[in-house]
């Protein structure tokens, strides 16, 4: 489904601040795979997602979604097949626009935007229905500005927007990191539900080892721009945090350098 072939991403190339975020990185996802991506600070997790989404171009290598080479496509064109949720709850929605307007924008992802109405009455019913599944009471606040919502509500809405038009690939970039633990659990539960219902191929970056272990059918751990652990199937099911930490030490020869991951 997703084929990443030997991509390299270097920031500030040729300067003293040169930083190799991804080096000759390869990864292949099957249809319906739900991969959790974990790693220390600066391991290249977010860079990876941003390269797949087209926020950054890559220095080397290629990225294929299905059979289609998207390496040179700009971000907005890749959005036709990619749904995204960001770490910052403010980034995934337009604060000064209504809930229904945000959903209507997402509903038209991959379509040519013309001079038809930005939102129709028929759609409103559909959105109402979807929103009621979130169980946050948003279905009665269709025209409220998104800026009025809490971080968790906005993140749930972004999740709905990312999946409203079924994407071929769903990218979740530490999408619960900015939320309090209770809210984070709820958003994660919703993510699981959406992924399952749509059988979506998903990459979820997280700093939380427990989340990485509990969710998805495959786990990759990154270190210095490379995959150092790739755990799937039954082996993934039996994984524990202690076990994962030990294997990280063996694979990288270092202690796991992410306090947040250990504390949560």
């Amino acid at each position, binding site marked *: 489904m997703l084929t990443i072939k030997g991509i390299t991403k270097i920031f500030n190339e040729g300067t003293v601040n040169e930083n190799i975020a991804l080096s000759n990185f390869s990864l292949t996802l099957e249809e319906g795979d739900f991969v959790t991506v974990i790693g220390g600070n600066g391991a290249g997790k977010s860079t990876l997602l941003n390269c797949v989404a087209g926020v950054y171009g890559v220095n080397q290598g290629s990225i294929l979604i299905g059979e289609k080479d998207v390496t040179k496509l700009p971000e*907005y064109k890749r959005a036709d097949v990619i749904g*995204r949720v960001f770490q910052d709850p*403010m980034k995934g929605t*337009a604060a000064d*626009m209504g809930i229904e*307007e945000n959903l209507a*924008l997402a509903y038209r992802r991959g379509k040519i935007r013309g001079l038809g*109405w930005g*939102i129709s009455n028929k759609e409103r019913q559909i959105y109402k229905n979807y929103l009621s599944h979130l169980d946050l009471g948003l279905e009665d606040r269709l025209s409220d500005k998104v800026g009025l919502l809490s971080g968790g509500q906005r993140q749930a809405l972004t999740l709905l927007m990312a999946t409203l038009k079924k994407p071929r690939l769903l990218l979740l970039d530490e999408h619960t990191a900015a939320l309090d633990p209770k809210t984070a659990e709820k958003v994660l539960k919703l993510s699981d539900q959406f992924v399952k219902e749509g059988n979506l191929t998903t990459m979820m970056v997280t700093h939380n080892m427990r989340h990485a272990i509990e969710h998805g059918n495959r786990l990759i751990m990154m270190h210095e721009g490379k995959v150092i652990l790739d755990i799937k199937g039954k082996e993934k099911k039996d994984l524990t945090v202690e076990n994962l930490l030990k294997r990280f030490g063996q694979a990288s020869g270092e202690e796991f350098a992410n306090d947040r991951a250990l504390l949560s």
Partner: protein
Amino acid sequence: MLQILLGAISLGLIWAILTIGVYITFRILDIADMTVEGSIAMGAAIAATSISNGMSPYMATFLALLGGMAAGFVTGFLHTKLKIPALLAGILTMISLYSINLLIMGKANLSLLRMNTVYTPLENLGLSSTNAVMLFAFLSVLIISGIIYWFFGTELGCAIRATGNNSQMARAQGINTNNMITLGLVISNGLVALCGALIAQSQSFADVQMGIGSIVIGLASVIIGEVIFGKRNFLNCLISLVLGAITYRIIIALVLKMGMPANDLKLFTAITVAIALSLPVFKSYLRPIKRSIKGGDL
């Protein structure tokens, strides 16, 4: 006094078109677009030159609209394709328009005295020139507001609003933000040039200098409108813009009447805008916002 007031209202109605244009860039796209200063004079230059060469005033005004749209496109191209910061891109277009406007007119100013303008048919119906301008400007503002209200409710219009509000989100939803910014600048400067064309015809001359300070006047009108007449929804905003532009003209007419030298006008306007834009800072200084953190579910 009544005459002064009516004059201010008719002038305000024409400037309302520019105000809508400035609102599109300043509020919807979140860009301070300096192109305005050049494109208003460009509209005037195109209209005046075309009319004095015997073209129909309506056709001339339409050409002015197209000219302004082209100016907006250039700024959009400089900003989105060549990655020049928006403010500087606008300044570059503005400065180059100064020369271009001189080229269009062939001299620094052009008189339209005793020539047919878009207001002439109304004057022929027996309206005084002030009333003719007022009626024509009112109808223009009505039609333009209607089109703008409709447009920003369409898929394309919503995409422009999303771009100005959160460009990262817009791209993630498949919106070509570069094109949307350019399109916004094109529409905005088209309106500004249209305003310039109508001003030139109402005052019977076009001047290459007439754009100086117009962006500040536009901003003053936007802010006065929002503060006094509200911004609850888009329709309310549009009405506020028009009333804001008129209010600005009435204020200016009154301070001039009270004896302020005309030369101080731009200083007065700039100070007004500076104060209005800094109001949020003063407010938070005098009355810190109380934040309450609610715990719990989402």
